Structures are given as structure tokens and as C-alpha cells.
């Protein structure tokens, strides 16, 4: 039971990081990122591949964050310089193409077999209660990212982001280079998603392309909208509630006889999609509205 709870809490922490990253993009700046899972995958794969190649973890992790950020900068620059309404499709397409790449370029990514035996950082220090230690590490990361993003939100930079979200013409008239701010916000979100990926890969010790399906992006969106977009605490609360929802519906399998694995997954995703739409209509500010 403790093992189960530790595992659940670790995954909540990872999803909370994803939601915090999306909050900078959508919550503060109003940018639609439908490729959250792509940056998650880049973080997991970069750190995982480097780690199994024997690179020490601080170096591998830094590389993962840098590559996530660069990918975010490239996409954001391509889309935001000209047509913001294309950002959604460019990010969605990027997620799909990246997954094709992970599946097919086995020379680099090991293809459908995935990466096995990703070493666990600092395992020598805590050989006994390593899972608890790792949970602590994830919790520490969530706390740090939360504090940094809270500072960002309150800073003059954060105010500009919110001004852009509300009315970018006004922000531009006030002398702000709107595109630059948007790209910066997008990159911050991409790096945080990359960090979540790093923790994910090292935690499972095994990653493969089908762990990074589009529904992961949808889950992060639901977490953020449910918790309260624009509110960093909301993002974390949303991640907790989402996992409660996903894990809770798993128990439905024991209660309803005709629910097979495929059907359960389908019902879960229907629920998530419907909840997202319902929240958009009924309570777009989420449980913890932006202050």
C-alpha cells in the first residue's frame, strides 16, 4: 500500500510539473500548446539516452532541459512570428511527428523497443527506501518550480504576459515586443515540461514511444483547467484531482462486469474530454480562480 501511494504521489508530482509548465503558456499568456507531450518526451528521451550512455545525471538533465527549450523556441518562433492561430496545429503536429521519429529512428531512439535500464540517480545513497527518496526529489522539484513560477507571475515580466493574454494590441501599444514575450513564455513552459519528462524516464527506468500519446496532452489540459488556469496552485491541485479521477475510475472495472481494458480506457478518455468541455462552458476559471 505504501508502495502504491508513493508511486501515485510521484506521478502526481510529474503531472503537476506538466500543468505548471502549461500554466505559463496558456494560463498566463494565452498560448495554445497541444504538444505538451512532445516536450515531455524530449525531456525523458534526452535524459534517458544520455544516462544509459553513461553520462552523469547533472549533465544529462541539463542537456534535456536545453533541448526541450530549444525545441520550444523553434516551434514558437515559427508559429508566433506570423500566425498565432497556427500555434495549436504546429504543436499538435510536432507531437505526432516526434512520436513517428521515436518509433522509426531506432538507431537513435531504439524505436518501439524503447530504452530499458535507465539508471536511477543517486541510487547508491539510498539503496533501501529509494522510491521515497525519489518522491522527495520530485516534490522538491515541484516546490522549486512553483516558487520560481510564482515569482515570474508576480514580476513585471509576468504582468506583461497577462497583459498580452488580455489584449495584445494594448500591450504592443505600451511598447512591449509581444512576440518576444510570447516566445519566452512558451520556452519556459517547454523547459518545465522537459523537466517533468526527465523525472518520468528515470522513475520508470523504461520509456517507449507509446507512453507519449496525444491523450497525455489532454490530461494536462484538464488538470490545468480544472484546477484553475492562471493559478499555479490550481495547476498542482488539478494534477492531484486528475490522478484521483483516473485512478478512481480504474476501480469501476471491478464493479461493472462488461468493462474490458480497452473499454475502460475509452470510457476514461470520454470522461476527460467531456469534463474539459463542461468546464470550459460552466467554470472556465476552474476551482481556484486566478487572483
Amino acid at each position: 500500500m505504501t508502495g502504491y501511494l508513493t508511486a501515485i504521489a510521484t506521478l502526481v508530482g510529474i503531472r503537476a510539473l506538466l500543468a505548471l509548465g502549461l500554466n505559463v503558456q496558456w494560463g498566463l499568456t494565452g498560448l495554445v500548446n497541444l504538444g505538451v507531450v512532445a516536450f515531455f518526451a524530449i525531456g525523458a528521451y534526452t535524459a534517458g539516452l544520455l544516462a544509459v550512455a553513461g553520462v552523469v545525471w547533472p549533465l544529462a538533465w541539463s542537456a534535456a532541459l536545453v533541448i526541450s527549450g530549444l525545441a520550444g523556441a523553434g516551434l514558437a518562433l515559427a508559429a508566433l512570428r506570423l500566425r498565432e492561430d497556427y500555434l495549436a496545429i504546429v504543436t499538435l503536429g510536432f507531437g505526432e511527428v516526434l512520436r513517428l521519429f521515436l518509433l522509426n529512428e531506432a538507431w537513435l531512439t531504439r524505436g518501439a523497443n524503447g530504452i530499458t535500464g535507465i539508471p536511477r540517480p543517486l541510487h547508491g545513497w539510498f539503496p533501501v527506501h529509494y522510491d521515497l527518496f525519489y518522491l522527495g526529489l520530485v516534490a522538491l522539484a515541484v516546490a522549486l518550480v512553483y516558487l520560481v513560477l510564482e515569482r515570474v507571475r508576480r514580476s513585471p515580466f509576468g504582468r506583461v504576459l497577462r497583459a498580452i493574454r488580455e489584449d495584445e494590441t494594448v500591450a504592443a501599444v505600451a511598447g512591449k515586443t509581444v512576440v518576444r514575450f510570447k516566445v519566452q513564455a512558451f520556452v519556459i513552459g517547454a523547459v518545465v515540461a522537459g523537466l517533468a519528462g526527465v523525472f518520468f524516464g528515470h522513475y520508470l527506468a523504461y520509456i517507449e514511444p507509446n507512453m507519449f500519446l496525444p491523450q497525455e496532452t489532454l490530461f494536462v489540459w484538464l488538470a490545468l483547467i480544472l484546477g484553475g488556469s492562471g493559478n499555479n496552485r490550481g495547476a498542482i491541485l488539478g494534477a492531484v484531482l486528475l490522478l484521483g479521477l483516473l485512478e478512481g475510475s480504474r476501480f469501476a472495472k471491478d464493479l461493472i462486469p462488461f468493462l474490458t481494458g480497452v473499454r475502460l480506457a475509452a470510457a476514461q478518455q470520454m470522461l476527460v474530454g467531456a469534463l474539459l468541455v463542461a468546464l470550459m462552458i460552466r467554470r472556465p476559471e476552474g476551482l481556484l480562480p486566478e487572483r
Partner: protein
Amino acid sequence: MPPIAQYLFNGLVTGGILALPSVAFSLLWKLLRFPNFAVGTYLTIGAFAAFAVNHGLGWRIEWAWLWAFGVTGAVAWVADRVAFRPLRDRRPFALAIASIGVAFVLENGVRFIWGNDYRSYDVPVTRALVWHGLRVGREQLAILGVAVALMLLVQGFLDRTRLGIAMRASADNPLLARVKGLPTERIIGLATLGGGALAGGAGVFLGLDTTIDPLLGTGLIIAVFAAAILGGIGSAPGALLGALVVGVMEEVSTLVIPPTYKSAVGFAVILIMLLLRPQGLAGARS
């Protein structure tokens, strides 16, 4: 290796199928001012609606196609009523997010009922026509013919009928259209119904040309988007042209890159367009 003409012909068929949802997607985007990501899933709905009556009730594929055409139109209309209408005056991006939610509900509804297996229609086997080494399937010819006919009908409707002209007016300037007393909601309802029907019909074609599974249409949304952008948002002939270009490029691309990357062609087209000509091939400079 088959001649290059074979790739071009297959590309035209793919493009013809792609044209139906692309035109729907492009017109709805202009009219409602948000990219509806659920349009791809409407193809899946159409494919399975036809599958249900074709296998379950033994209907001929022609009747099953008509049925799918109607059912998908109705599903799109209901989705619009339930999910999009309450959000009409919100930021366009809120609608785009909601459309992703709708797409997941529909796709997984299909998965819940039929599972993840690959299926195909019950159709009589026909021999392909061979002409100078070019293989032309009879189904392919029928698909291309119906797709072209539907495109002409859409264009005629938009150009010639009062309702079509009203629809274009609403898309160009919704405020002015409303002030002038056009029934905007009815126009949107009709456009959604028609757009959904076109996408559903295309879904059956795609199922005939390939196989049917719950991801049939979802993966197509990037190509649809690319076609709409190529043609310029809101232009029906543009979307048709864009779809043909994307379809041919997808097939011809397999000569130089592994076929597994076929679905990345749409993404490449979008990136190239963004960098070179963001207003579309046929669109005016804005």
C-alpha cells in the same frame, strides 16, 4: 517499381478524399473563427456509421455511405449545439480547446463500442483497370467521381443559392450579417450539418481505400489543416486545391522518404507555408 503516374493517381484519390473535410474545416473556421479539431474525428464517425449498417444490417455500401453522410452531419450538429454554441462569444482558443475535448469524446465513443481492431467493409471484389501499367481501382474512380461532384455542389451552393451567399456574408463579416438580419445561428447550424456530412462521407471513402479503426480520422487533422492553410482559410476552391497538393505530395513523398513518415508531410507543408506564405496560396495578403 510502378510508374510515377501511379503515385500521382493515388495521390489524386487521397487528395479527393481529403478535399471533403478540408473544405468543411476551412469554411467552418472562417464562419466560426476557430479551428475545429473535431473535424478529423467526424471521418471516424462516418466510417463506423457505415460499417455498422454495412456489416450489421447487410446494407450495400452505397446506401451505407448515404447513411454515414446523414449520421455524421447530425453528430456534428449536436456537437455544435452542446459544446460550441455556449462558447460562441469566448476567445477563439477556448473553442479550439473545447473541440479537442469533443474529438476525444467521439473517438473514444467509437472505441468503446467497436474496440481497437482494424476492420473493412463488405464490398464485392472488383478487378482493377490496367492502362499502360497504371492500375486504377473501380472504387478509386467512384470515390474520385463522387468527391468531385460534391465539391461542385458545395461551390454551386455557395455561389448561387441565397443561403450560400448568406453563409459567405456571415463568414466575411458576422456583425454586419447579423445587423442585416441574417439568421446567423441557423446558418451556422446548416454549415455544421453540411460540413459534418462531407467529413462523414470522406470517412467512408477512406475506409474503403484503407482500413477502418478508431484513429482513422484523428491522424488526418494535420493534413486537413495543411490543405486549408494552403488554400487560404475560408476558400472552398482553395481547400480543394490544397487537399490535392497535400494528397499528391503524401504519395509521391514515399519515393524519397520511408512511407512511415507519410503523415508528417502535412506538418512539413504547414511549416513551409508559415515561413514562406502565411496567407495561403490563393489567399490575398492581409
